[in-house]
């Protein structure tokens, strides 16, 4: 008996990444495994560290905006948005109403694009290739709209402090409505192809359950938190810009196919959010003032008053916060970006212990991380 008791499976350390198809960037996961079962996941980050915060202390506020683009390169508009909202609150600028609507439309379009990428890549992590390309096809349409509006497809530098860089193109409304009319019928198709697929449900339901308390304690936010059943959305609960004028639902996870807060719930919340974003865009296109200036009266050289501000906005990944400390000079004294993906990644170890290697990939995919934002 003693001999049998002394037989122990050897723990193997498996390095997933930094170059791995499913780490969504240069992320390294040190995974301690016992056979297929994972006992510990240690994320090692910093491979994409570009000293955003240090760099921001040496450049002017206007010049920071292109760098915020590059933090979360999947949802650049939302990152711009977060920064300018914080800056405008710090400087107490009232921007024209048309600008607010333009910003909301852009941010919501980018939210759809970001969720499309997240969901498609999630399908890819699970092994379904076709939904990925179908979603990419629709994402390209959104990028076309962005290219038309601001000339760039990925890194926009579109929202400025006190305005946007360009007005909308002339026939923007029809283009946008065309896209929505084309896109909305595709959502049920994605659902048929992937969401309700039994294999997909088997792979994601009950896997990587994140209870609400754990999620809040880890600071997880956005769709990941809502997947755990917490009805929290900065757009609704701390409205910024003109979000308080829109009528939209906050989808929360329900645990339809498994436990509340599992991977499927997080996936499903994103799917529902795309529909809500479409609603918001439609409402915004109706309510947008026809003409008007797209710049508020802002001095050429931005010098915020002395002081500090922390403002968070809802990026597709969660609460995106900027802590700006100004000393009255044209360069920030301190600029801290609270990236939602960093908190999402930190919860990985907590929720993936005891699952299999394939599940670690599935859980990581469901958290929808962007390494540019984590490493900054």
């Amino acid at each position, binding site marked *: 008996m003693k001999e049998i008791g002394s037989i122990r499976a050897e723990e*193997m350390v*498996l390095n997933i990444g930094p170059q*791995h*198809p*499913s780490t969504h960037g240069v992320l390294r996961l040190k995974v301690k495994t016992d056979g*297929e079962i994972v006992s510990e996941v240690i994320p090692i980050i910093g491979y994409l560290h570009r000293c955003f915060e240090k760099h921001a202390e040496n450049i002017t506020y206007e010049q920071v905006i292109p760098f915020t683009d590059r933090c979360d390169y999947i949802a650049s508009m939302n990152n711009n948005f977060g920064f300018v909202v914080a800056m405008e609150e710090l400087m107490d600028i009232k921007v024209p109403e048309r600008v607010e609507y333009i910003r909301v439309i852009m941010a919501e379009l980018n939210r759809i694009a970001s969720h499309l990428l997240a969901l498609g890549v999630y*399908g*890819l*992590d*699970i*092994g*379904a*290739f*076709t939904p990925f*390309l*179908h979603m990419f*096809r629709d994402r390209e349409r959104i990028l076309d709209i962005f290219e038309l509006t601001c000339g760039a497809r990925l890194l926009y530098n579109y929202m400025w402090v006190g305005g946007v860089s360009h007005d909308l193109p002339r026939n923007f409304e029809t283009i946008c409505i065309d896209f929505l009319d084309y896109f909305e019928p595709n959502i049920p198709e994605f659902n048929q*192809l*992937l969401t309700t*697929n039994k*294999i*997909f449900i*088997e*792979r994601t339901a009950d896997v990587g359950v994140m209870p609400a308390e754990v999620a809040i304690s880890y600071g997880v936010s956005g769709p990941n938190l809502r997947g755990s059943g917490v009805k929290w959305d900065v757009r609704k609960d701390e409205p910024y810009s003109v979000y308080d004028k829109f009528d939209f639902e906050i989808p929360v996870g329900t645990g339809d196919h498994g436990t509340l807060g599992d991977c499927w719930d997080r996936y499903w919340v994103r799917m529902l959010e795309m529909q809500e974003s479409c609603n918001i865009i439609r409402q915004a296109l109706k309510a947008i003032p026809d003409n008007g200036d797209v710049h508020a009266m802002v001095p050429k050289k931005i010098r915020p008053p002395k002081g500090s501000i922390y403002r968070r906005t809802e990026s597709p990944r969660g609460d995106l916060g900027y802590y700006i400390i100004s000393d009255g000079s044209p360069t920030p004294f301190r600029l801290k970006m609270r990236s939602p993906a960093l908190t999402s990644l930190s919860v990985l170890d907590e929720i993936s212990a005891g699952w*299999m*290697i*394939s*599940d670690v*990939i599935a859980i990581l995919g469901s958290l929808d991380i962007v390494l540019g934002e984590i490493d900054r």
Partner: protein
Amino acid sequence: MTVDYLIDLIPFATDFPGLVFIAVIIACAVPIFMFIAVYALVAIYAELKVSSFMQDKVGPMGQGVGLHAGKWGLLQPVADALKLILKEDIIPSTADRKLFIMAPFIVFIGAFITMAALPFSPTIIVADMNIGIFYILAVSSLGIIGLILAGWSSNNKWSLYGAMRSAAQIVSYEIPAAMSIIGVIMLTSTLSMQGIIEHQSGFVWGILPNWIIFQNPFTFLSFFIFFMSGVAECNRTPFDIPEAESELVAGAFTEYSGMRYAFFFLSEYANMFVVSGVAVTAFLGGWQSPIPGLMDSSGWGLFWFMSKSLFLIFVMMWFRWTWPRLRVDQLMSVCWKGFIPIAFFNIFGIGLWKLIIG
């Protein structure tokens, strides 16, 4: 059959039996190898195109020859093959050299020798053994040895995971596949491939082909069990966990490159053909025409056999580009909790059907 035919052809066969035997074996092996190579090119092209079409893109294309991939991208598989041949062959310094080199050939041989018993037409079959289907079931699992060798000798954790997964998978899925075949054998009372096909000749009520799949409801179910198990044995999606490109990078093949990788690739496609061929032989009437009187001379046998097999291969591709991948424990439970009980139930049902109805 072909072997016997060739041996008979040579007048002095009885004088040098050993030599003639080897010569005949080579004479049969070379065409099969050529066939696999050509078929693999076609299948790769088909896979590219099928996947592209399902994903709303046109796949490899080209206007004119030259830098592009030829008309409709027809030269794409040729270019791929050329690239694999020309690519540097890398053997990791810490790998177990001998086993590392051996592994792809063992896998390929496993797929290759099963071809010997496939009846392409009434006359084209290398050897119509009286234990044909049993032989195929036996040797088709030879590949697993090669996969484990590859995984072990690569000295890479991903490879090891892939090898272990595929070992578990292939060994498990042999069981439902064999169980489904047992039902067929019970109906046909023969193990010979040609015998099984002969048994399926004729039509019920003059319209419905008398194939085993249509003979009773249990065989209908058996066909799907066999086919899905076959998909699993080929390591295709949704059962492609040994290769699992998004989890295990490339599974057992992670460290392979160039020609050695090409052999794995070739054997995967050859395996697909074998599985489809056996499914066609055992359930879909082999080389027999599905419509009474339509092209049912023995010359058309090859056409019918190939078109049926290629259709099943297309279905495999269809699976691959539609479905996600199962997890390893789910894979096992699908096999042990789903397929095997149903396969047993099918044997029982087929036996009962035969006793009661005839």
